[in-house]
């Protein structure tokens, strides 16, 4: 009897797992706070990036702050491959990355092991 129960629970768990990780889940993009001279956005690093997408305005000098709230090795670095940035986030609580906004484009970023992804959109 318990064997059958475990089988049923196992199947339900697997289905739930796939729904949770691969189902369609939308996440809001973060906007930067803009004033005349510059714009800033903060991304909290805790078990991922939230928000994982940040939208910046073209032409306004921009800074993206990474607020490190995670202490596992995976997320210790953030890498912007197009910008040549490989920043160690564990050195200080908040690490700032300057984003060029001279043209409308997307900059992808990821953790050092390329497991967590996010992007900065300039438009």
């Amino acid at each position, binding site marked *: 009897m318990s*064997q*059958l129960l*475990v*089988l049923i629970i*196992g199947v339900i*768990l*697997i289905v739930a*797992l*796939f729904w*949770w*990780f*691969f*189902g369609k*889940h939308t*996440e809001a993009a973060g906007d930067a706070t803009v004033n005349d001279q510059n714009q800033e956005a903060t991304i909290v690093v*805790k*078990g*991922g990036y*939230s928000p*994982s997408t940040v939208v910046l305005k073209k032409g306004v000098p921009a800074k993206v702050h990474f607020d490190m709230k*995670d*202490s*596992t*090795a*995976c*997320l*210790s*670095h953030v*890498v*912007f*491959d*197009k*910008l*040549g*940035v*490989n920043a160690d986030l*564990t050195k200080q609580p908040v690490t700032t990355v300057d984003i060029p906004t001279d043209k409308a484009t997307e900059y992808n970023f990821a953790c*050092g*092991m*390329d*497991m*967590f992804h996010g992007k900065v959109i300039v438009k």
Partner: protein
Amino acid sequence: MKHLTSIQRFWISFVLVIPMLIQMLTMPFHWMMPGYTWIALVTTTLIMLVAAVPYWTSAWAAFKHHNANMNTLVAIGTGIAYFYSLFAMITGRAVYFESAAFIAVFILLGDTMEERMHNNASNALKKLLDLQVKSASVLRDGKFVAVPLDQVEVGDIIQVKPGEKVPVDGVITTGKTTIDESMITGESMPVTKKTGDSVVGSTINGDGAIQFRATKVGKDTMLSQIVEMVKKAQTSHAPIQNLTDKISKVFVPTVLSIAIITFVIWYSFLGATAVQAMLFAVAVIVIACPCALGLATPTALMVGTGRAAKMGVLIKDGQALETIDDVKTVVFDKTGTVTVGKPRVTDLVGDKSLVLQTAASLESSSEHPLAKAVMEHAAASGITPEPVGDFRAIEGKGVQATIDGQPAFVGNEKLLADYLIEPAMKQQLTALQDAAKTVILVGRAKRVIGLIAIQDAPKPTSAQAIAELKARGLQTVMLTGDNDRVAQAIAKEVGIDRVIANVLPNEKADHVKALQQEGKVAFVGDGINDAPALTTADVGIAMGSGTDIAIESGSIVLVQNDLRGVVRAIDISKKTFNRIKLNLFWALIYNLIGVPIAAGLFVGFGLQLSPEFAALAMAFSSVSVVTSSLLLNKAKIGGTEPTSAIEQAA
């Protein structure tokens, strides 16, 4: 506990785990530590707080974002073992505290070692930046004063004493010296420099004192640009990573499913107890390591591009590195790439001073490199050009004008259609051309009165480089605007297989395209007109001494003006790419073998993994991938020194 580094966490947990380690080792002697369960409860709880809680919080935060990663696996593995043991202790069953504790300790060990090696791998860049000096001795108000590097401006006159480092890029104004440029070019021989020669920041001055005018400071210096390029290369993506990206997306949920299936099969179908089934499931969760997969490419890329930079080869991104692996043909621009790029007059036929006088007078206003060679030679021989009249270009053939009321001309052999030449001179013309020399015909009235032979000699290292490329099974091709005879002679001298001569500058890219029909092509060039070919080729290799446009167009830049750099670029790229493939294979096979063993598939053969050994194996897998990448620093790279006689004989 946020401020603890992973190494501190590791040592704290390690000390705490010692009692359980002792118990484990004495188990075969049937010795039971008094009050073991209580000791295990306290130490494991502390270890969980120090080592596992960060994983739990991170995994939970990730879970809420519909994300799962290695932390999820560690958290579930330690969590199940720990909380089940708490439950077992209360209900008087066997506990598994040591599983939870050992998993946490081994994972931390892996993290710590991997972090160390990662830092090691990114060291190349730091070393480059450390090359910079802090201040420069700059001429201000008639005196040389020490000025911080960031306040040095373009145009400043800077003094460098013997043994000091050159602070920024510039051109020598006074003095003569030798400079060790190995840190930038990888070339160990010091280079002689005199007034008018350019110097590069961060190179080391030899025994002469010099003063130079700064031409590039701050972000524009060669070193800063190299650092910038290496940085981008190290963080760039190789196309092969698309594969790992795809795998890592489904990796953790798949592993979790396999763990559930493992539990269900053992419990529901094979009649195992819930605890046995749980141990198999936990082992599956713990051994599966997406980290090794994720680290395989970036670490190898980081070490490979860093090593390349040290040898004067700047690889711009992972794409170039991957493509060069398939290259079948290497195409060279001739002038300045295979050859020195500075044509010189080598022979004069006829009445030497009259020939030179006539040629110099007609060519004095020309910008053509051959004309420049003539003018230089004339100046060196003490000949001054005479004024000319009626100056006129003969399309595609040369120029003509009148000197002292007499018609005169200078040009190539196509002029022979219109002018007379003595048979003896004609023979000399052919002989000179066969010797890879470009010949200029000089004439007065209707008759050729003499010849000027000009040659752009191959670089001394070109032949060795070509031989090494051919030894790697590559086809070598030379593209040139020169005539076929000259081109063939140069090609023969350095050993190039195939020559495409008489190519107009704007046709280079078309020839590259045609060669691409036979396989991937690398193009090596340095000039402005090479830019389209550099972009068209699968891999563009630009000579660093070349124009900015060429450097911008190339996906690999050779700092040193030496073709052996091409061999180095190909070798290091191949080695790095092979290392990436090896790492990926290792990481994949590791999971493919490890997971079934952990799931208990081979229990029938007595092969079984407890959760703590699964954790050790998992920690080992990511460490071994990083180690494997670091080994790239030791890989043998060609194109560095002439092959010894022994190696040639072998």
